[in-house]
């Protein structure tokens, strides 16, 4: 798929880049990384340790009541293996104070009146048939009852806005804590967003997008997997399905946003960026041209409609 991509060379380049960015450009003495136990933060953690040394890195775990306990286990194990200090701050009480859960659960109740946050779980999903039909992006809530029964309801614009705004408090609270931990040590906040998240708008402005440097922002998810394997990130982290870890029920990033497995999404996207025709891409992936065009349209729509997230503050 990425014939000219050499994970070892790219890792070496990024290690030098992190060193230069931290010490020379930002003039900070180390780095703070929010680690989730996922592949992106793991890769950045491994790169940063090689760049700055384990004693100049703080791995910060910022769970809330909806976080999977597995995330903390994976993150702790990795930090221990690397000899990196960890700090865990549960942000649940802060979020409660902001009214995050109440606002979010009330919006879900508007869509499903008998939703009971005390025992039901929920997740937000997009249609999953991107290859089958040219379906448009429209969000639904899926309620999961204690007996496993699922109820799916389409969300109204008001409900979506409420849920997204409330959920974004999580990422913005994490950003605030990361900067607190960084500033008290004269460290930089090192971000973990990748190209898929950045270019398609799957990040929170001034939340996980609010950092001092983004070492893997130019890399497709599949390239990050290759670098992670090269760096020796543990298999159980590499093999975990990427999740949103934002809503009470587990939702994969494919369900919530991307609508395709990463190898196919990245392959089609990179071929399109490099000027391949839909015909050629279709032949390479054993798809028909319409399916390829659906994927490209989805990428273009997401890029176009999330442009404001990537803009710096407007000035006259």
């Amino acid at each position, binding site marked *: 798929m990425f014939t000219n991509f050499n994970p070892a060379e790219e890792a070496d380049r990024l290690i030098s880049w992190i060193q230069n960015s931290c010490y020379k450009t930002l003039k900070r003495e180390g780095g703070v990384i929010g680690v989730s136990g996922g592949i992106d933060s793991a890769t950045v953690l491994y790169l940063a340790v090689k760049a700055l040394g384990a004693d100049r890195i703080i791995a910060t775990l910022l769970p809330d009541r909806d976080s999977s306990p597995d995330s903390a286990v994976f993150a702790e194990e990795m930090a221990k293996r690397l000899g990196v200090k960890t700090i865990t701050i549960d942000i649940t009480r802060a979020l409660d104070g902001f009214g995050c859960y109440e606002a979010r659960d009330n919006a879900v109740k508007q869509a499903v009146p008998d939703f009971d946050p005390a025992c039901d779980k929920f997740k937000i999903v997009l249609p999953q048939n991107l290859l089958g039909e040219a*379906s*448009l*992006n*429209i969000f639904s809530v899926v309620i999961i009852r204690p007996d496993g029964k699922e109820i799916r309801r*389409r969300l109204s614009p008001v409900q*979506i806005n409420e849920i997204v705004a409330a959920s974004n408090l999580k990422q913005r609270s994490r950003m605030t804590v990361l900067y607190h931990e960084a500033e008290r040590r004269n460290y930089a906040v090192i971000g973990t967003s990748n190209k898929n998240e950045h270019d398609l708008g799957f990040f929170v402005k001034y939340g996980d997008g609010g950092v001092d440097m983004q070492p893997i922002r130019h890399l497709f998810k599949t390239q990050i997997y290759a670098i992670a394997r090269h760096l020796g990130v543990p298999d159980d982290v590499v093999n975990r399905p990427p999740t949103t870890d934002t809503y009470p029920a587990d939702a994969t990033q494919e369900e919530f946003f991307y609508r395709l497995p990463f190898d196919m999404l990245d392959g089609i996207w990179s071929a399109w960026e490099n000027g391949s025709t839909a015909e050629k891409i279709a032949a390479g992936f054993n798809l028909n041209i319409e399916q390829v065009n659906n994927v490209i349209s989805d990428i273009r729509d997401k890029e176009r409609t999330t442009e404001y997230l990537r803009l710096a503050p407007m000035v006259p």
Partner: protein
Amino acid sequence: MSSSLTKEKIREELLGYFDATFPLFDSEAPDETPLAEHGVDSLGTTNIVVHLEQQYQVEIEDSEITRANLGSLKSLVGFLDKKLNG
């Protein structure tokens, strides 16, 4: 409520709705222009679906929320015409 609407009338009403709802909507653009180019994102698509269901008393299944049905003003007019007039 609106079962006697002609295709022309549907287009006129939808143009009015788009003009009033989406600040970036360009009413001079060809009807085939993808709605995403008018600034319609996933939230906008949801807004359109809610509007059609409430204004025209039609039921829209998730499986109908496709580019072919809702991807442009032209496709939307055809889709609603089919829903209302068969």
